[in-house]
């Protein structure tokens, strides 16, 4: 990871902490996106009652399942793209950033 990694053969504590934090951030972000997506698709914004009714509940379960499938699919496509580009730096169109 580190460009100047001389004499630092294993990740420092700070790096371990940073990695754990980043993983937690991704999970949180994904949960928020899932929630936003499935509330939008399955729960109308009229709010005539406070409960999730049966139809909405079933829709949420299927929506979540499909969301995970899309997540997996996108991840596979990005990996394939990265592999095709030679796994070099970037390739995401984020030229140099």
């Amino acid at each position, binding site marked *: 990871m580190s460009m100047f990694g001389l004499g630092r053969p294993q990740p420092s*504590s700070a790096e*371990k*902490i940073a990695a*754990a*934090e980043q993983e*937690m*951030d991704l*999970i*949180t972000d994904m*949960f928020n996106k*899932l*929630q936003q997506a*499935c*509330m939008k698709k*399955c*729960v109308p*914004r009229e*709010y*005539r*009652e*406070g*409960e*999730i009714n049966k139809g*909405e*509940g079933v829709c*949420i*379960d299927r929506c*979540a*399942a499909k969301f*995970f499938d899309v997540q*997996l699919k996108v*991840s*596979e496509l990005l*990996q394939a793209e990265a592999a095709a580009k030679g796994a070099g730096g970037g390739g995401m169109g984020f030229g140099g950033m």
Partner: protein
Amino acid sequence: MDGLTNAEQREFQSRMERKQMKEFMGMFSNLVSHCFDSCIDDFTTKSLVQRETGCVSRCVQKFMAGSERIGQRFQEQQAQMMNQPPPGSR
């Protein structure tokens, strides 16, 4: 988080707490925005009318219920992913 000193664990713990608090506050402000946007459309008065107050209550209740259900699906899926080969190996 093996191999951390006590001081490091303490620091890690307190960062996680701050993160959770931040997360909670973000959820709160999004919920306010969403229920306001969905329920409030009458600007002839400056206090909430009964219909609006009811709508906000149901909006919050429904959001919490939906959030709980989605959270269950999410946790099941996270647990399942732990027992699976990574995506690239298919």
